[in-house]
């Protein structure tokens, strides 16, 4: 089939060639620009959202420093509280502190602990279960029940009490001591202590005495003679 050529159309196209080229280039630029704009805007907005979130989290974390001061004014110091908590639940079991805790409870409550044995079956890696035998009058025993949780310097829970007054008063208790590191991860963005948490810390502060080790300061305040004569 022979193709019919319209010379007049070609003549006009030739005259408008510059416009046609410009039109094509402009369309190409427009498409290229639009695609790039969409890509760049999406990327930038995504980055802004991501970094805004990070900054927001960091701001919350940075408020901790101001909050530390605020909470110190309420009588709670992070460092001291952590020492208390670590004393109550050491990261690794410390049998000496268990014995010391039992002795301290005896002294503080007048409930005399005369014997204790480890319950191997109910003890776990993070929980030491003991059967404790003690004696004392009802007041002493009730004092023990009132203060046993923190007063020994270790966190103690009681699973069973067996209190008998027939003949002579004798008490058998199943108590637990705890140790181990925490497994859960608290985010520091949740940077406030609740009222219940403050109350618990203050209760523990009242009942557990932290023995701070003071380094003996070298007494160099007096004048030293280099020549004794």
């Amino acid at each position, binding site marked *: 089939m022979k193709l019919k050529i*319209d*010379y*007049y159309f070609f003549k006009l*196209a030739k*005259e*408008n060639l510059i*416009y*046609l080229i410009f*039109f094509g280039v*402009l*369309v190409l*630029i*427009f498409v290229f*620009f639009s695609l790039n*704009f969409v890509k760049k805007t999406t990327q930038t*907005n995504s980055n*802004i959202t991501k*970094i*805004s979130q*990070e*900054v927001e989290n*960091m701001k919350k*974390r*940075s408020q*901790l*420093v101001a909050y*530390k001061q605020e909470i110190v004014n309420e009588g709670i110091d*992070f*460092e001291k509280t*952590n020492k208390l*908590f*670590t004393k*109550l*639940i050491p990261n690794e079991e410390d049998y000496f502190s268990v014995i010391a805790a039992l002795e301290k409870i005896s002294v503080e409550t007048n409930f005399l602990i005369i014997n204790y044995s480890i319950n191997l079956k109910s003890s776990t890696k993070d929980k030491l279960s003991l059967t404790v035998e003690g004696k004392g009058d*009802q007041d002493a025993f*009730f004092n023990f*029940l009132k203060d046993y*949780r923190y007063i020994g310097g270790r*966190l103690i*829970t*009681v*699973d*069973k*009490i*067996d*209190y008998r*007054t*027939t003949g002579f008063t004798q008490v058998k208790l199943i108590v637990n001591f*705890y140790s181990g590191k*925490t497994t*859960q*991860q*608290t985010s*520091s963005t*949740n*940077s406030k202590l609740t009222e219940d*948490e403050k109350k*618990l*810390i203050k209760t*523990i502060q009242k009942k557990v005495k932290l023995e701070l080790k003071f380094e003996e300061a070298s007494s160099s305040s007096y004048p030293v003679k280099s020549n004794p004569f």
Partner: protein
Amino acid sequence: MKKGINLIIKQKKYLHYENFFKTLRKLLLILVVIFFVISIPSFLLIIQSNKKLDALYLEKKNLLEYLTANKKVEAEFVYLKNKQTQITKIINEDVNFLPYCNLLTDSLKQASPSPTLDAIIITKDRTINFTLRFDDPNSIISFLKFAESEIFLNNFSQLYISQFNLESKKGNQAYQLLLIGKLNPIDETKN
């Protein structure tokens, strides 16, 4: 041979071609205008977004430096929170027997004449097992009347007499009642 164009015959068709190119030129002009109208605000928008992003990067850098300088505070707080959660979890599992012992001794004081508490065993699941001593049978009847009252029974979800003993020493008689039951939970926050 030069080919002529017959404008008389094909006028309509040629006018159509010319109109097409005129429209194309107009369209081009409109497109240029649209391109500038759209591109200038777009560029401004991109510049603004980049400025915002730069400001955020700077803020992040400053905060990061601040947090690095105060990382000890953050570490202390995270440790405190974790340890506190651990303690709270353990405490919540602890029964706290004192309110139950107090409850029982206080309740017994309300019985007239009040029996002597010989033994008390309470386990973690609040199962209670207690032995009461009476000096005469009338006291037992008096106590049982008290034990059936709401003041006493409100403390237990179940309670029954498991054993009754009669002891005789040197002519003195003593009566023992062994009661077994389950205590109701006490809301410690009320105290």
